[in-house]
């Protein structure tokens, strides 16, 4: 049926097809919305589009972004995890205990913290894969178990005497602008970048990443093709555990102390960012840039409203409306134009 078209026609067709595909991507829309909102805030709030403000924003949201990278992998695999905030808190607190009570050296502490995160992630994977518990139920249960145990054993006490290597600020790049403002690229921002890059490479450039996409798209087919679905479940939840632990460590680094319940209630914000960025709860869909854009949108909304003097309490309303509007538009626009064509395709004679 399709005939080989001549050169230029084909190029135009390909470009058109690419645009059509691009137009349907949530990332494209998200990017446009961010541009619009950013411009608006830039015009209305003079301090908004300044480099220090932007860098500040990045640092504030680095913890959420790091964890969102892990959650993104789990969402792509077709699962969901509610327990990551608890995981982050547990990993952070364990590491803080090791550092302040036992005075272990930095590499050991960091390694131990990350190991706790990966371990908790693997417990989730085991519950989901071997015991066949739905991911949302398994992780809700794990969240209450691990967070409550943390509160029980810590008695809710914060650890303030973190060692200096943990809390002292690490600045990778520092410059003074003509305006006199100082721009610093700090450890959280660098880690966020590294984590995004790592996740992006893992998911788009390696076999296992593509397998995770395949599994999220059609688990049954993945099994038939010979993909080891159990191993992927461990990889996805283990990776989220790792990301959560890293986020927990960075969070303590930023605030200089370990508070057992500091990360509670970030679950929904991180999930919103991932979903805004186009990761689907049904699995198999989503990109790292999309998730980052989701975080950026939430960040500039909060910061911009803040600079405009809007009450911080108003922010949650904005998040709610943003989630409702963006998800509705995505679903509704993909539903349009899906009519089975029988008239045009069937032979009209004979």
């Amino acid at each position, binding site marked *: *049926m*399709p005939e*080989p078209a001549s050169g230029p026609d084909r190029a135009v067709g390909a470009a058109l*097809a*690419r645009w059509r*595909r691009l137009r349907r991507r949530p990332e494209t829309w998200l990017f446009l919305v961010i541009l619009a909102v950013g411009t608006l805030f830039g015009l209305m709030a003079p301090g908004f589009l300044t480099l220090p403000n932007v860098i500040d924003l990045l640092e504030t949201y680095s913890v959420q972004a790091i964890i969102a990278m892990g959650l993104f992998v789990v969402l792509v695999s077709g699962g969901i995890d509610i327990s990551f905030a608890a995981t982050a808190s547990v990993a952070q607190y364990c590491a803080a205990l090791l550092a302040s009570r036992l005075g272990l050296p930095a590499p050991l502490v960091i390694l131990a913290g990350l190991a706790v995160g990966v371990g908790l992630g693997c417990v989730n994977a085991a519950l989901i894969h071997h015991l066949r518990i739905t991911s949302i139920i398994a992780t809700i249960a794990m969240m209450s178990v691990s967070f409550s145990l943390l509160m029980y054993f810590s008695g809710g006490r914060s650890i303030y005497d973190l060692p200096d290597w943990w809390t002292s600020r690490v600045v990778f790049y520092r410059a003074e602008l003509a305006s006199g403002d100082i721009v610093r690229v700090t450890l959280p921002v660098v880690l966020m970048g590294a984590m995004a890059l790592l996740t992006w490479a893992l998911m*788009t*450039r*390696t*076999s*296992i*990443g*593509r*397998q995770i*996409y*395949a599994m*999220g*798209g*059609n688990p*049954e*087919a*993945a099994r*038939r*093709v*010979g*993909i080891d679905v159990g191993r992927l479940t461990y*990889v996805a939840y283990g990776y989220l555990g790792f990301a959560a632990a890293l986020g927990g460590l960075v969070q303590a680094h930023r605030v200089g102390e370990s508070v057992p319940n500091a990360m509670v209630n970030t679950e929904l914000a991180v999930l919103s960012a991932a979903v805004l960025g186009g990761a689907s709860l049904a699995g*198999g*869909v989503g990109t790292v840039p999309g998730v980052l854009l989701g975080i950026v949108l939430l960040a500039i909304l909060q910061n911009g409203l803040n600079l405009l003097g809007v009450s911080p309490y108003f922010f949650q309303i904005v998040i709610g409306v943003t989630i409702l509007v963006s998800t509705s538009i995505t679903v509704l626009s993909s539903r349009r134009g899906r*009519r*089975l*064509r*029988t*008239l*045009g*395709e*069937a*032979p*009209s004679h*004979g």
Partner: protein
Amino acid sequence: MSGETPFLRIKGVSKRFGGVQALIDVDWEVRRGEVHCLVGENGCGKSTLIKTVAGVHPPTAGTIEIDGRPVPSLDPAKAKALGIQVIFQDLSLFPNLTVVENVAVESTLGPALRPVQKAGMRRIAGEVLARLDFPLDLDALVADLPVAERQITAIARGLAAKARLIFMDEPTASLTRAEVDRLLAIVARLRGDGIAVVFVSHRLDEVVKVAERLTVMRDGRKVGTWPVAEVDQRRIGHLMTGVDVEHGVVARDMRAAPPLLAVEGLSRRGEFADVSLTLRKGEVLGIVGLLGAGRTELALTLFGMNRAEGGRILLEGRDLALRSNRDAVRAGIAYVSEDRLSLGLVLPQSIGDNLVLAVMRRLKNRLGLMPQARRRALAAEWVERLKVTIPGLDAPVRTLSGGNQQRVVLAKWLATRPRVLILDSPTVGVDIKNKQGIYEVVADLARGGVGVILISDEVAETFATCDRVLHMRAGRIVGEAVPGVVSEHEMEERIYA
């Protein structure tokens, strides 16, 4: 038969699941590069046979030889390595990935952190599609492809995995005639490359025409293998069922009966156009045509699921404005969907609840409650009237056989006391005994004054049940026949022409 070793030879293969003997002492062979049909009714052991050859189910007894060499412990990986590929009916594709990634998915099965060979995968996909002479947009998402192109993608994936024997499970079930032709052209090409293709089907359709040999299965046994030229459709039907189905023609002249449902110039863009028909009281009207001729779409519009974009529907002379299927049911129109498993029944729920679902409103008492006793009484009454064999009203409907499930669907709709009953391929996946039972129910209804529209792929079925048969093609009604006046053969010629 030549002395050449067949690609696949199985000897004395049996397979038992618990107490069920799914395969009994099957000897079978597939030659290199042949097109072979494997037919049989649902539950005859076809799928078990495929899965045994694909290494999914190890046989309880017997041997499997590939290329003349026995393969003692076949597992799916080994079967694939030996060139056996199965294209399941659901195609097992990844809708969220591109054509390239689907076709060359095997390339991503290597070590976890190995970089994805993008260029390599592209080359593989391009080459395979070129071999099939079927250029697809390599970067299109599979979710965006029409069914026929998805099928090509699945075949291409099999080829990319170096298939030498491809099983295609019900490959034509959802294709239009033109698409089937394209598929058959591709199969011819595969044969040219020395790749054997086995079509698996429970229906006798056009695929039989391109095959060289045909194997019939029944009750877990192989009935036999014949060159296709030596068996005709009727003989195959007999071999499949073990019953000689000699349908008499039952057509009655209903021209004197008052018109019940009249459709005038009904159209819906992209689906069907300018459809006019009259259904009389007590008449059984057949609609035949290929899958994709717009039959189901027409039925859905008559049932109020989709809005007509032109034309009128009149019930006993009164204009019907159907905004939803609730309007249709209220007016006395019922529709038995062709997709029993996902649209006809709520499989996990109980038989009783499925039976009362469409008439819940009628069961309410003054308090708005549905007393358990009334529900059970109604359900029991219909189970009795349609002779459904059930373990109990509380058993999930999923546990019933295909035939009994279909009786439950019929009962559910008859409970709404319809005046017009639309049956869409009502005997697909139903065994021969239940088929006859369903035809009897239809005849009974017609005697009681219900107008029945029966949509079917099988001319024989409509000839055995209908008073008049309409022929639909490409969204239009193109002919009408009275069974007996026109022979079954003539009608088939018209449809498959």
